[in-house]
């Protein structure tokens, strides 16, 4: 009963806020349902978290938000369609690092992540780790690279060819002259299974927490630009002394040219619900971090990484 009344209370206060918001804006956006496109299939973590965020934002905006899955081609299909959608704030995309700054750096995708989109906010981003089997001789990331430099050939598995983790390690191999051999798998799950079965020496994958806690795998480093709060003692690759990072983002974007007032309103609403306790609790269950960032900051990350990865891809193609 307690639970029921408190949720009613939240709803009431949400309603009150809603009245406040709608009077604060000259335009009466939104007047019709908003579509949030998800570039992956229904039921994945990006999809589930986007659905939750949308259902929370729905209550704030007073209009339904329809989540539409448009999977395929590593998320680039959905990006292309939203880039060409009308910039009125009614078509948004909840998207991730790969179609934002990895795939566009590698091959033509038919959109420009910087010029064709206005970032609204970042709300999540699973940490990718450098993982070895628990009985592996490598105890630190430095040790691993030193071994690879002194002639031992190290194979590493990733979720697929030309993904962020692959390009990051390729960069390290170039910087240090280490012998790192890439073995792409079909998804992060298969790559994790391969390192558990010792078919590869290292795997660069997300969703490793329980396997590390169960001491089946050892976490040597984090590819992200900050440490994984679940493993505070494990350094990022930058901290370990290698100039490489793969910042994982999950954010909402609108087509470029959307009215700044609408963008501001959306940013405020989504930021508010992304910071809510309900969303945090939900994401914790999903084993996904909540990483709220302003649209401006997200835009910066996209721009700088797009450049970095373009250079990596260019070097790779010249080998």
């Amino acid at each position: 009963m307690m639970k029921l009344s408190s949720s009613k209370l939240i709803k009431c206060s949400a309603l009150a806020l809603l009245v406040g918001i709608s009077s604060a804006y000259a335009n009466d956006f939104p007047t019709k349902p908003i579509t949030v496109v998800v570039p992956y299939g229904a039921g994945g973590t990006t999809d589930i978290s986007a659905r939750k965020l949308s259902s929370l934002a729905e209550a704030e905006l007073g209009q339904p938000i329809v989540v539409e899955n448009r999977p395929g081609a590593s998320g680039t299909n959905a990006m292309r369609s939203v880039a060409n959608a009308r910039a009125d704030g009614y078509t948004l995309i909840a998207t991730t690092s790969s179609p934002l700054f990895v795939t566009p750096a590698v091959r033509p995708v038919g959109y420009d992540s910087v010029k064709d989109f206005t970032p609204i906010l970042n709300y999540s981003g699973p940490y990718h780790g450098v993982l070895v089997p628990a009985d592996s001789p490598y105890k630190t990331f430095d040790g691993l690279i030193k071994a690879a430099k002194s002639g031992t050939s190290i194979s590493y598995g990733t979720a697929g060819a030309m993904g962020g983790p692959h390009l990051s390690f390729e960069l390290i191999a170039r910087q240090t002259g280490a012998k790192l051999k890439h073995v792409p798998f079909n998804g992060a799950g298969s790559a994790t299974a391969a390192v558990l079965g010792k078919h590869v020496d290292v795997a660069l994958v997300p969703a490793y927490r329980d396997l590390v806690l169960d001491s089946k795998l050892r976490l040597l480093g984090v590819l992200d630009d900050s440490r994984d709060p679940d493993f505070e003692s494990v350094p990022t690759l930058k901290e370990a002394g290698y100039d490489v990072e793969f910042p994982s983002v999950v954010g909402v974007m609108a087509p470029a040219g959307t009215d700044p007032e609408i963008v501001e309103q959306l940013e405020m609403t989504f930021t508010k619900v992304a910071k809510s306790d309900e969303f945090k609790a939900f994401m914790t269950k999903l084993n996904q971090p909540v990483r709220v960032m302003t649209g401006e900051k997200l835009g910066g990350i996209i721009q700088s990484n797009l450049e970095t990865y373009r250079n990596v891809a260019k070097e790779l193609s010249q080998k």
Partner: protein
Amino acid sequence: MLLDAFNALMDIWVLVAAVSGIVTGIIIGAIPGLGPTMAIALLIPVTFTMSPIPAITLLLGVYQGAIFGGSISAILLNVPGTPSSAATAIDGYAMARKGEGGRALRVALYASVAGNIFSCLVLIVLAEPLASFALNFGPAEMAALMLFALLVIVLFGGGVRLDAALMVLLGVFASIIGLDPIEGTPRFTFNSFAMENGLQLIPVLVGLFAMSEVFLKLFQKQSSIKEPVDLPKIVPSKVRFVDMWRMRATLLWSSLIGTFVGILPGIGSTVPAFMSYGLARARSKQAHKFGQGADEGVAAPEAANNAVTGGALIPTLALGIPGDAVTAVILGAFMLQGLAPGPFLFRDYGVEVYAIFEALILSSIPTIIFGLLLFKVAVHVIRIQPRHLFPTITVLALLGAFSVNNSLVDVWVMLGAGFVGFLLRRADFPLPPLLIGLILGTPLEQSVRQAMLTSNGSLDIFWNSGIALALLGLTAISILISLCIPLLRKQRQQKGSSNV
């Protein structure tokens, strides 16, 4: 623990969840194009507010129901609702054409239930050791297994072997389209972004099997479409327990194959269904009856594709590593219920997990009841006049192809596959090997190349692995057997004729 779990099931909501899950699953599975992945993904938000046991029971009921539901349309219409029921269509539809559709459906139902129960028991008893064992399957072992699977289908799938081999190769060739799995470079995409994903399985399946049927009817010489066509009479059909018991070895082998292949990532349920069909045919003394409507031809693939469900849950739950799209979605559902799959699942949530497994086994009872009720209505589908039936199939095929990725390109792929399927069927080529080639082409290529990458290009990786060696040995033995059997048969025939 098992008893505590059983007590946790004594809740009316668990029953409601199990029944509604199964009914939804069967219906969605029966519609071509809509599969368990989509059904589960759509139902996940419904389960947000439910407590863990009914929520997961509902979703897993959909999973099992959908795999079985696919065979209803496969048997009655020769249109597989899901890829894995394409094997069931071979003998199931042959039976339906003789008016024995009811019998085929019942055999399929009982075999499905047998496969389900078997794989659930394996899941309860051996989840953790099997999950660890499956990790031994690296790229080299997977490559050997897939090679074996391809050969079983060519050698024992029935029909002319050269035709089957050609079709497998055509399927493998079709799988080359899209991004290279190792380098990520586009192949045969002609700069079309839409083709980077390659040919999607569901549109190709729906086209090859459903749309080609429509094209066949369209180009058939017929005086007038308006005239009613003679349709098979529905033969009253009973399947007694003895009939199923006679097939116990087939059911057991098929369930074993299904469960085992299910544990391995990335192969899915279509390949084990055809492998089981091939094996049942090879073992049978009446191999000539396969393809003409043999009970075992329906039972073998159905037991196998349903057994995959339990097998696929093993690595998903015990390691938190899903093998395919369906189990990835189920993994998400478990997490949302606070039951995070992985090494701690059985330790921390034993009661809930075992309760869910027991619910899966017990839901065989409602599955049988609702299955039998549904059949009473469904068998009349074969009495529908073609002029009503085929437009319906066309609409379903178009919708099904579109719904996979919400993409119009898939609809064109479906229509193209339908035309190719029509040509091949007119020329009497078997379609299943084409489907298997398409399914296994990319993973086989990827596994071989992964193996070569990890071994620095040395083939030793195949000889140094016991599992890979055993599988390659099996492959060699299968080839020898298939070469010897006709020779032996010929000798026997000659002996027989000389005696006369």
